[in-house]
Protein backbone atom coordinates (compact mmCIF):
# COMPACT_ATOMS: atom_id res chain seq x y z
CA UNK A 1 0.00 0.00 0.00
CA UNK A 2 1.37 3.41 -0.91
CA UNK A 3 0.27 6.25 1.28
CA UNK A 4 0.75 9.67 -0.31
CA UNK A 5 2.69 11.90 2.03
CA UNK A 6 0.20 14.64 1.24
CA UNK A 7 -2.38 12.69 3.25
CA UNK A 8 -0.55 13.51 6.46
CA UNK A 9 0.19 16.80 8.15
CA UNK A 10 2.51 17.98 10.84
CA UNK A 11 0.55 17.85 14.08
CA UNK A 12 -1.44 14.77 13.13
CA UNK A 13 -1.83 12.30 15.98
CA UNK A 14 -0.89 8.65 15.68
CA UNK A 15 -3.80 6.45 16.82
CA UNK A 16 -3.01 5.64 20.47
CA UNK A 17 -2.20 2.14 21.73
CA UNK A 18 -3.31 1.10 25.21
CA UNK A 19 -1.88 -1.43 27.61
CA UNK A 20 -4.77 -1.77 30.02
CA UNK A 21 -2.78 -3.49 32.75
CA UNK A 22 0.98 -4.03 32.67
CA UNK A 23 1.53 -7.66 33.55
CA UNK A 24 3.94 -8.85 36.24
CA UNK A 25 3.84 -12.28 34.62
CA UNK A 26 5.08 -10.90 31.30
CA UNK A 27 7.89 -9.10 33.14
CA UNK A 28 8.99 -12.48 34.47
CA UNK A 29 9.03 -13.99 31.00
CA UNK A 30 10.90 -10.96 29.74
CA UNK A 31 13.47 -11.23 32.53
CA UNK A 32 14.17 -14.82 31.51
CA UNK A 33 14.54 -13.91 27.82
CA UNK A 34 16.78 -10.95 28.61
CA UNK A 35 18.69 -12.99 31.20
CA UNK A 36 18.28 -9.98 33.46
CA UNK A 37 18.81 -11.02 37.08
CA UNK A 38 17.54 -7.74 38.57
CA UNK A 39 14.79 -8.75 41.05
CA UNK A 40 13.00 -5.43 40.66
CA UNK A 41 11.44 -6.94 37.54
CA UNK A 42 10.13 -10.12 39.14
CA UNK A 43 10.13 -9.84 42.95
CA UNK A 44 7.57 -7.50 44.48
CA UNK A 45 9.21 -7.78 47.90
CA UNK A 46 12.49 -6.52 46.43
CA UNK A 47 10.72 -3.44 45.12
CA UNK A 48 9.00 -2.83 48.44
CA UNK A 49 12.41 -2.99 50.14
CA UNK A 50 13.96 -0.39 47.82
CA UNK A 51 15.69 2.30 49.89
CA UNK A 52 14.79 5.01 47.40
CA UNK A 53 11.02 4.62 47.38
CA UNK A 54 10.50 7.44 49.86
CA UNK A 55 12.13 9.87 47.45
CA UNK A 56 9.62 9.14 44.70
CA UNK A 57 6.52 11.29 44.34
CA UNK A 58 4.28 8.23 44.51
CA UNK A 59 4.20 4.86 46.25
CA UNK A 60 5.77 1.95 44.45
CA UNK A 61 4.25 -0.47 46.91
CA UNK A 62 4.66 -4.16 46.12
CA UNK A 63 4.68 -3.74 42.36
CA UNK A 64 7.43 -4.88 40.07
CA UNK A 65 9.12 -2.42 37.72
CA UNK A 66 8.61 -2.99 34.01
CA UNK A 67 11.77 -3.49 31.95
CA UNK A 68 12.63 -0.44 29.85
CA UNK A 69 12.37 -2.43 26.61
CA UNK A 70 8.84 -3.55 27.50
CA UNK A 71 7.67 0.00 28.12
CA UNK A 72 9.08 1.20 24.83
CA UNK A 73 7.57 -1.78 23.02
CA UNK A 74 4.08 -0.36 23.61
CA UNK A 75 5.12 2.71 21.62
CA UNK A 76 6.49 0.49 18.86
CA UNK A 77 3.22 -1.44 18.82
CA UNK A 78 1.39 1.84 18.30
CA UNK A 79 3.54 2.61 15.26
CA UNK A 80 3.16 -0.92 13.88
CA UNK A 81 -0.62 -0.69 14.16
CA UNK A 82 -0.43 2.63 12.34
CA UNK A 83 1.98 1.89 9.47
CA UNK A 84 2.82 -1.80 9.56
CA UNK A 85 5.45 -4.04 11.12
CA UNK A 86 8.39 -2.71 9.09
CA UNK A 87 7.70 0.99 9.47
CA UNK A 88 10.04 1.99 12.32
CA UNK A 89 13.33 3.30 10.93
CA UNK A 90 14.69 5.12 13.94
CA UNK A 91 13.65 5.15 17.54
CA UNK A 92 15.06 7.28 20.36
CA UNK A 93 13.64 6.90 23.83
CA UNK A 94 14.26 8.24 27.33
CA UNK A 95 12.91 6.97 30.63
CA UNK A 96 11.73 9.82 32.87
CA UNK A 97 9.62 7.55 35.10
CA UNK A 98 9.18 3.87 35.85
CA UNK A 99 6.29 1.72 34.61
CA UNK A 100 4.83 -0.61 37.23
CA UNK A 101 2.85 -3.80 37.11
CA UNK A 102 -0.91 -3.18 36.89
CA UNK A 103 -0.34 0.29 35.43
CA UNK A 104 -2.70 1.31 32.65
CA UNK A 105 -0.56 3.15 30.09
CA UNK A 106 -1.24 4.64 26.69
CA UNK A 107 1.29 5.11 23.89
CA UNK A 108 0.78 8.30 21.91
CA UNK A 109 2.53 10.23 19.18
CA UNK A 110 2.30 13.17 16.83
CA UNK A 111 3.94 13.98 13.52
CA UNK A 112 6.55 16.72 13.81
CA UNK A 113 7.96 16.67 10.27
CA UNK A 114 7.33 15.05 6.90
CA UNK A 115 10.09 14.40 4.38
CA UNK A 116 11.20 12.25 1.50
CA UNK A 117 14.40 10.24 1.53
CA UNK A 118 14.97 8.61 -1.82
CA UNK A 119 11.68 6.96 -2.65
CA UNK A 120 10.69 6.66 1.00
CA UNK A 121 8.11 8.88 2.62
CA UNK A 122 9.07 9.47 6.22
CA UNK A 123 7.37 11.01 9.21
CA UNK A 124 9.39 12.22 12.18
CA UNK A 125 7.30 11.89 15.28
CA UNK A 126 7.31 12.76 18.95
CA UNK A 127 6.25 9.68 20.87
CA UNK A 128 5.53 9.00 24.51
CA UNK A 129 3.96 6.64 27.00
CA UNK A 130 1.60 8.21 29.48
CA UNK A 131 -0.19 7.31 32.68
CA UNK A 132 -3.41 9.05 33.66
CA UNK A 133 -2.11 10.22 37.04
CA UNK A 134 1.67 10.20 36.73
CA UNK A 135 1.92 11.79 33.30
CA UNK A 136 4.65 10.96 30.80
CA UNK A 137 6.63 7.84 31.76
CA UNK A 138 8.69 7.37 28.59
CA UNK A 139 9.40 10.00 25.97
CA UNK A 140 11.23 10.06 22.67
CA UNK A 141 11.23 10.42 18.92
CA UNK A 142 10.71 8.08 16.01
CA UNK A 143 11.08 8.08 12.27
CA UNK A 144 8.33 6.11 10.57
CA UNK A 145 8.11 5.09 6.93
CA UNK A 146 4.67 6.04 5.72
CA UNK A 147 4.55 3.66 2.81
CA UNK A 148 6.00 0.19 3.21
Amino acid at each position, binding site marked *: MTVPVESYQVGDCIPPWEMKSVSAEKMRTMAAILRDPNP*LHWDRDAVAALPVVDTLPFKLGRRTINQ*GPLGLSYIINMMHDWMG*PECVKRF*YITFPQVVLDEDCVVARGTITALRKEGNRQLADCDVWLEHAERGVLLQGRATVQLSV
Partner: protein
Amino acid sequence: MKTIPPEEEITALVGHEFPGGDYTIEHWENFLLTGCTGADPLPDGIAHPVALFHVPLYGANTSIGDMFKLGQAESDLSVIPEYYDWEIFSTLREAVKYRVTGKIIAAERRENSHGQTYDWLLFQFDMVEPGGKLAVRTSMAQQFTRNTL
Protein backbone atom coordinates in the same frame (compact mmCIF):
# COMPACT_ATOMS: atom_id res chain seq x y z
CA MET B 1 30.08 6.39 51.34
CA LYS B 2 31.33 4.17 48.58
CA THR B 3 34.60 4.91 46.85
CA ILE B 4 34.14 6.54 43.46
CA PRO B 5 36.38 5.03 40.79
CA PRO B 6 39.14 7.33 39.51
CA GLU B 7 37.91 9.39 36.59
CA GLU B 8 40.75 8.16 34.39
CA GLU B 9 39.54 4.57 34.82
CA ILE B 10 36.16 5.63 33.45
CA THR B 11 37.43 7.72 30.54
CA ALA B 12 39.86 4.94 29.62
CA LEU B 13 36.84 2.81 28.72
CA VAL B 14 36.39 4.72 25.45
CA GLY B 15 37.25 2.35 22.64
CA HIS B 16 36.66 -0.78 24.70
CA GLU B 17 35.39 -3.43 22.32
CA PHE B 18 33.28 -6.42 23.27
CA PRO B 19 34.33 -9.80 21.87
CA GLY B 20 31.63 -9.79 19.19
CA GLY B 21 29.88 -12.78 17.71
CA ASP B 22 26.77 -13.99 15.96
CA TYR B 23 23.13 -13.99 17.01
CA THR B 24 20.14 -15.66 15.42
CA ILE B 25 16.70 -14.75 16.75
CA GLU B 26 14.81 -18.00 17.14
CA HIS B 27 11.09 -18.25 16.43
CA TRP B 28 10.26 -19.26 20.00
CA GLU B 29 12.20 -16.31 21.33
CA ASN B 30 10.48 -13.82 19.05
CA PHE B 31 7.09 -15.38 19.76
CA LEU B 32 7.49 -15.06 23.53
CA LEU B 33 9.07 -11.63 23.31
CA THR B 34 6.33 -10.26 21.08
CA GLY B 35 3.73 -11.75 23.39
CA CYS B 36 5.29 -9.89 26.31
CA THR B 37 4.72 -6.61 24.46
CA GLY B 38 1.00 -7.30 24.16
CA ALA B 39 1.14 -7.60 20.37
CA ASP B 40 0.26 -10.51 18.12
CA PRO B 41 3.14 -12.26 16.35
CA LEU B 42 4.37 -10.24 13.38
CA PRO B 43 4.02 -11.75 9.89
CA ASP B 44 6.67 -13.30 7.65
CA GLY B 45 9.22 -13.97 10.35
CA ILE B 46 9.61 -10.31 11.24
CA ALA B 47 11.17 -9.94 14.66
CA HIS B 48 9.73 -7.39 17.03
CA PRO B 49 12.14 -4.46 17.42
CA VAL B 50 11.98 -4.87 21.19
CA ALA B 51 14.66 -7.51 20.56
CA LEU B 52 17.06 -4.66 19.88
CA PHE B 53 17.78 -4.34 23.56
CA HIS B 54 19.15 -7.80 24.29
CA VAL B 55 20.15 -9.18 20.87
CA PRO B 56 23.02 -6.70 20.36
CA LEU B 57 24.32 -7.30 23.89
CA TYR B 58 24.34 -11.06 23.75
CA GLY B 59 25.35 -11.11 20.09
CA ALA B 60 28.42 -9.07 20.96
CA ASN B 61 29.15 -11.57 23.72
CA THR B 62 28.52 -9.27 26.61
CA SER B 63 25.68 -8.92 29.10
CA ILE B 64 23.96 -6.40 31.31
CA GLY B 65 26.10 -7.66 34.19
CA ASP B 66 29.33 -7.30 32.20
CA MET B 67 28.45 -3.76 31.23
CA PHE B 68 27.72 -2.87 34.84
CA LYS B 69 31.07 -4.33 35.88
CA LEU B 70 32.90 -2.31 33.24
CA GLY B 71 31.39 0.89 34.58
CA GLN B 72 32.14 -0.20 38.15
CA ALA B 73 28.48 0.00 39.10
CA GLU B 74 27.82 0.23 42.82
CA SER B 75 24.85 -2.13 42.42
CA ASP B 76 22.27 -3.17 39.84
CA LEU B 77 20.05 -0.41 41.19
CA SER B 78 22.64 2.30 40.75
CA VAL B 79 22.59 2.28 36.93
CA ILE B 80 19.96 4.39 35.21
CA PRO B 81 19.19 4.08 31.51
CA GLU B 82 19.38 7.54 29.96
CA TYR B 83 18.40 6.79 26.40
CA TYR B 84 18.31 4.14 23.68
CA ASP B 85 18.73 5.15 20.04
CA TRP B 86 17.98 2.49 17.45
CA GLU B 87 18.65 2.96 13.73
CA ILE B 88 16.96 0.25 11.71
CA PHE B 89 18.25 -0.02 8.14
CA SER B 90 16.79 -3.47 7.40
CA THR B 91 13.80 -5.21 8.90
CA LEU B 92 14.86 -7.48 11.75
CA ARG B 93 13.98 -11.12 11.09
CA GLU B 94 13.94 -14.49 12.76
CA ALA B 95 16.38 -17.18 11.59
CA VAL B 96 18.90 -14.70 10.19
CA LYS B 97 22.42 -14.96 11.55
CA TYR B 98 23.55 -11.44 12.38
CA ARG B 99 27.19 -10.59 12.99
CA VAL B 100 27.30 -8.33 16.03
CA THR B 101 30.01 -5.99 17.25
CA GLY B 102 29.92 -3.59 20.16
CA LYS B 103 32.07 -0.99 21.83
CA ILE B 104 32.06 1.93 24.23
CA ILE B 105 32.18 5.15 22.24
CA ALA B 106 32.01 7.71 25.06
CA ALA B 107 32.72 7.72 28.79
CA GLU B 108 32.62 10.86 30.88
CA ARG B 109 32.35 11.93 34.49
CA ARG B 110 29.40 14.27 34.88
CA GLU B 111 27.38 16.04 37.54
CA ASN B 112 23.61 16.24 37.64
CA SER B 113 21.54 19.30 38.49
CA HIS B 114 21.70 18.36 42.20
CA GLY B 115 25.49 18.38 42.13
CA GLN B 116 25.68 14.59 42.30
CA THR B 117 28.48 12.87 40.44
CA TYR B 118 27.77 10.14 37.94
CA ASP B 119 29.63 8.45 35.12
CA TRP B 120 28.07 8.50 31.67
CA LEU B 121 28.80 5.62 29.31
CA LEU B 122 27.63 5.34 25.74
CA PHE B 123 27.59 1.85 24.23
CA GLN B 124 27.16 1.22 20.50
CA PHE B 125 26.35 -2.05 18.76
CA ASP B 126 26.19 -2.91 15.06
CA MET B 127 24.25 -5.83 13.62
CA VAL B 128 25.35 -6.87 10.14
CA GLU B 129 23.25 -9.22 8.05
CA PRO B 130 24.64 -11.98 5.84
CA GLY B 131 26.13 -10.25 2.83
CA GLY B 132 27.70 -7.55 4.91
CA LYS B 133 25.00 -4.88 5.01
CA LEU B 134 24.56 -2.98 8.26
CA ALA B 135 21.07 -3.90 9.42
CA VAL B 136 20.83 -2.13 12.74
CA ARG B 137 22.89 0.23 14.89
CA THR B 138 21.89 0.65 18.51
CA SER B 139 23.24 3.11 21.04
CA MET B 140 22.59 2.93 24.74
CA ALA B 141 23.52 5.66 27.22
CA GLN B 142 23.71 4.64 30.86
CA GLN B 143 24.25 6.73 33.97
CA PHE B 144 26.38 5.04 36.61
CA THR B 145 25.32 6.93 39.72
CA ARG B 146 27.73 7.30 42.62
CA ASN B 147 26.46 7.34 46.20
CA THR B 148 23.04 8.41 45.00
CA LEU B 149 20.86 5.28 44.82
